[in-house]
């Protein structure tokens, strides 16, 4: 299990880095990977989370992503919000360079 997975979390999504360029990606309900957290599939409860991660795992052997893992999220007003600072930064980009990472798309 990835060191950044919170074992007590109940609501989680699956993230990884894309093999080719290292881009942060999220596992979606249709079994593909998206650059955007809003597209992620969210699981609730231990079994559902384990099942979601298991569904994502074959993408490793398919050379799509590296090291997928579960991370805690909350769903607020239908938006998916990561619980940890780490995942908030992965989702957006460096906090000291708003011109870099995914957040740059909104500049």
């Amino acid at each position: 299990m990835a060191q950044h997975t919170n074992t007590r979390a109940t609501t989680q999504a699956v993230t990884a880095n894309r093999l080719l360029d290292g881009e942060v990606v999220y596992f979606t309900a249709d079994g593909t990977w998206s650059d955007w957290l809003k597209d992620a599939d969210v699981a609730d409860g231990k079994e559902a989370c384990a099942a979601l991660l298991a569904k994502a795992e074959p993408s490793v052997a398919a050379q799509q992503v590296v090291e997928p893992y579960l991370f805690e999220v909350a769903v607020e007003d239908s938006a998916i919000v990561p619980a940890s600072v780490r995942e908030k930064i992965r989702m957006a980009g460096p906090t000291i360079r708003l011109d870099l990472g995914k957040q740059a798309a909104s500049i």
Partner: protein
Amino acid sequence: MYRYDEFDHTLVKERVTQFRGQVERRLAGDITEDQFKPLRLMNGVYLQLHAYMLRVAVPYGTLSGKQMHMLADIATKYDKGYGHFTTRQNIQYNWPALSDIPAILDDLASVEMHAIQTSGNCIRNVTSDQYAGAAAGEVDDPRIWSEIIRQWSTFHPEFTFLPRKFKFAVCGMNEDRAAIRFHDIGIEVVKGKDGAPAFDIYVGGGQGRTPMIGHLIGEAVPAVDLIAYLESIMRVYNMNGRRDNLYKARIKILVHALGAEEMKRQVEEEFVHVKEKGVVNLPEEEIARIRAYFAPPAYEALPDESSALNEAMADNKKFADWVKTNVAEHKADGYAIANISLKPVGGVAGDASDDQMHVMADLATQYSFDELRVTHEQNIVLAHVKKDDLFALWQGLEKAALGTPNLALITDHIVCPGLDYCALANARSIPISQEIAERFNDLDRQHNIGELKVKISGCINACGHHHVGHIGILGVDKKGTEFYQISLGGSADENASVGDILGPAFTEDEIADAIETIVETYIKIRQEGERFIETYRRVGKEPFKETLYATH
């Protein structure tokens, strides 16, 4: 500076070809990530939070103008227009695509550069004094010996799978700008009995979660025996270093467990065997061959005093401020050492844009014999600038926003990438550095405070050297929130010390106030001419603790 011979060229080219094949096989699915990871790490490729990161070696921090131009071109072509200079005097790119890395390595090889031994459990890039060959009082140029160690250690089959990574630093005099006592092996060049260069060898220093100061075990080791002695240390470590626990695998833990005396005894026992074989005795002619690469540049015969410099300083306060902080004494009359700060207030410590790298390269070519040095404090040095040229150099730097006059002042920090980039970090470092720099932006105030080294790490691995900061800041994670622990009294120089933790940690919002309280306490209690570190050593942590925790 050192130039590749045919063997170096072949070695580096073959390595690029090999890695290109490994990347192709990974992308084709012929090898798994578990198989590929150690291979990419051996070529300096990490996977960080947002992307891959490529760490490029800059041996002992020395670069030519051409090499710096290439680093800039790589930033433009394959990355996002900037690079990050590190505490191992290297450069890191934060956004390369894996598929581009073989092409980047080709470009690097074309200017005699590579990413070999910038990661993995091997002997890493050897670091040295950024004033090498320029500082007055130097016993010998430490780059000669750094290069010899580089050649000996590169792809050394016996030391490719050590218990853990292994770092060397070399300084050429007793004034230590290379933090040698905080390295696995630190070397100071001293005068031997015959007056020739010899080596004091410290072993078992380091930072991380267990900071330790190295122990002097080899005194005035003669040049002929240098590699034999180092090989003996490596063998004792390779045999006895712990491989069962990642956190106890560095040589410092072995030295601590054995005791310095026993370590020395074992090394000397091994040394007898290594010497008997005689295969690593360092030949005089080989030393002379390497020495020739580091021959002093062709200095002009100049008076030490420069009227052009004096006039420019009198006419321009901003320039005078820069000279006062960023320019150091040179051994040759009429020359000076110019430090380029990569710590502008509001910037990111150690970062330089592609344009800035081009400017620094051009200025080095024009004013400093086409040579630059990266410092372990994440700045750049032009080591041989005529005093007459300092004003023109500064004007060129100013135009590129490289004229920040803050060397060793409270806004010149060592800062790790922290949680903004690093997959291991627990907390952000860069924003904390920026807040402190903004708080102390006033230059007169910085000068009034005097030398004060702030070092910030985003996790216990201590890449930001917080243990040896006069003020050290360590970011920790408490249930998903970033907190910052302060230590005082660390020092990486010849009077090495590890900082003392003050007390409970502060939040991001509180940390700049806390640093200000510490600084104001120092201002109140310091004696005439006393630097922060000297005051701290005189009074200890209590006065700082009292004011800090009384107000928070």
